């Protein structure tokens, strides 16, 4: 009999690749104490605003330590419903069209488990958030990557969708603004995508976690377009705009039968999101908007700064319309994205993430997160410039 513990690991988990970010994380961790500036993060540098933290402390003091309703506290679902209607123009009933989850991460997992049969095809645009493809594999679905390109500012086009479409495609996963590219779609582009989804009867999972961090124009949710709310699951959370990553709190909104299906998985797998995090989220929605705007202004200026500096250094960088990531093209250096990232880290102690971590279409790019203080961004840009100029010699 085999003694290898590996034999107990399920086949589809054994074959699931580890996140490309993981290797890099370990490398950076080894350089601890060496004055590394990390642009490799995926979260705000702001601590959660104090009024939110204080509300959670108060909740603890009052003994709020129990389970909540599976769907989440009704007060929170009401606030979410109001917020989504005001900011995204879609009305969801708090009673049965909103579910509070442990981050957008759990909401995504619930959606894939609830809607994807083994073998079902899920389309997603790429480069994309590292979890999408593995999450599809976890439910035995088949992922179809749709490329987005720097010359379109990484907007998803209906033409690319159509070219990648295969018979049997059931779900379209959207993430606009996009991690890692910052790409978004104009209303016109979204309308074309929506028409395509109606034509092919696709269910849309729309991860709009960066929507508040849109710098030019206003964000449009695909769920707000005619005929789309009934085929869209709107996924959102507090991690990015409200600087609440560690709280693990998010939500999904959609047609009642679909939320009910997600709720089935949620009630058995998770029961409910942490009550403390729900209390914090409630406070954030009630009184947190000014802070969101203040943080967005900072990100906006940092974006302008880093994009200008990267271009000046000879790394072609499109202007990301949203999110807090710059995604420059580094091919002009003659290095692969991996060699670029490793060289920059080893020689100049700046961590960026190699684009391949975000899928095949991230080749030739690196992701640089600008959710970092101005002086750090400036210093990192100085170092990147020295690295790039050094390569020229």
């Amino acid at each position, binding site marked *: 009999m085999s003694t290898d513990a590996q034999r107990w690991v399920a086949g589809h988990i054994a074959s699931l690749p580890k996140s490309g970010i993981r290797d890099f994380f370990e490398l950076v961790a080894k350089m601890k104490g060496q004055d590394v500036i990390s642009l490799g993060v995926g979260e705000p540098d702001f601590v959660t605003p104090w009024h939110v933290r204080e509300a959670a402390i108060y909740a603890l003091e009052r003994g709020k330590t129990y389970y909540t309703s599976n769907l989440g506290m009704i007060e929170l679902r009401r606030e979410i419903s109001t917020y989504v209607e005001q900011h995204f123009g879609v009305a969801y009933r708090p009673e049965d069209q909103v579910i509070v989850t442990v981050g957008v991460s759990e909401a995504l997992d619930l959606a894939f488990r609830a809607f994807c049969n083994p073998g079902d095809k899920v389309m997603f645009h790429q480069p994309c958030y590292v979890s999408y493809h593995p999450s599809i594999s976890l439910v035995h679905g088949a992922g179809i990557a749709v490329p987005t390109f720097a010359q379109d500012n990484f907007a998803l086009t209906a033409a690319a969708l159509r070219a990648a479409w295969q018979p049997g495609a059931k779900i379209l996963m959207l993430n606009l603004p996009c991690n890692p590219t910052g790409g978004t779609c104009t209303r016109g582009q979204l309308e074309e995508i929506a028409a395509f989804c109606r034509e092919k009867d696709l269910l849309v999972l729309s991860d709009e976690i960066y929507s508040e961090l849109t710098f030019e124009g206003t964000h449009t949710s695909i769920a707000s377009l005619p005929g789309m709310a009934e085929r869209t699951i709107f996924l959102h959370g507090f991690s990015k705009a409200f600087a609440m990553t560690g709280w693990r709190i998010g939500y999904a909104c959609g047609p009642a039968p679909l939320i009910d299906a997600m709720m089935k998985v949620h009630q058995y797998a998770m029961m409910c999101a942490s009550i403390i995090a729900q209390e914090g989220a409630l406070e954030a929605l009630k009184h947190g908007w000014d802070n969101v705007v203040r943080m967005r202004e900072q990100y906006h200026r940092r974006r*302008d700064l880093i994009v200008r500096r990267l271009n000046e250094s000879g790394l072609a960088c499109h202007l990301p319309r949203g999110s807090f990531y710059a995604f420059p093209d580094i091919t002009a250096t003659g290095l692969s994205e991996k060699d670029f990232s490793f060289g920059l880290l080893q020689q100049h102690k700046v961590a960026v993430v190699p684009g391949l971590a975000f899928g095949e279409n991230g080749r030739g790019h690196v992701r640089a997160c600008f959710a970092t203080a101005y002086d750090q961004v400036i210093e990192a840009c100085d170092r990147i410039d020295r690295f790039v100029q050094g390569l020229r010699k």
Partner: protein
Amino acid sequence: MNPVLKLLIDGGSLTTGQLAQVAGLTEAEVNQHLEQLRREGIFLGWRPVLDLSREAAAALAVRAVIEVKVTPERGGGFNRLAERIARFDEVESCYLVSGGYDLLVFVRGATLQRVASFVSEKLSTIEGVLSTSTHFMLRCYKEQGFLLGTDDSQTQRLNVAP
């Protein structure tokens, strides 16, 4: 709004070189903006924010806030007296306020005696000053936006995350 003024209000402790980069200007342009703001009397000057409880910074560590009641004067209201009080070197800030007294005066000195004698000999003897109530500051928890002691900006954020 003047781009440099906006950054000054946001309060990041940036050098003029860094201000220039963030605003997308040259350093010379930033200095021109600062000069312009200075001429307009909007930008008054730079001051360091210090933790005065630290030994090294304790030279002018005794601080008090004084509530002052005064008699307003015909014609001048509170202004003449307030301006007179504000001119003393010991006075760091001086405000006309609503409520139970008229002026709120922040003073600073090297020793308790120096501050006490400023109040008893200078401030309270000015004609028109009716009464003073002096509160010595015992401990500072937050100084002009900076938290003392608990620094939650030093978080343990992961270096690389998805």
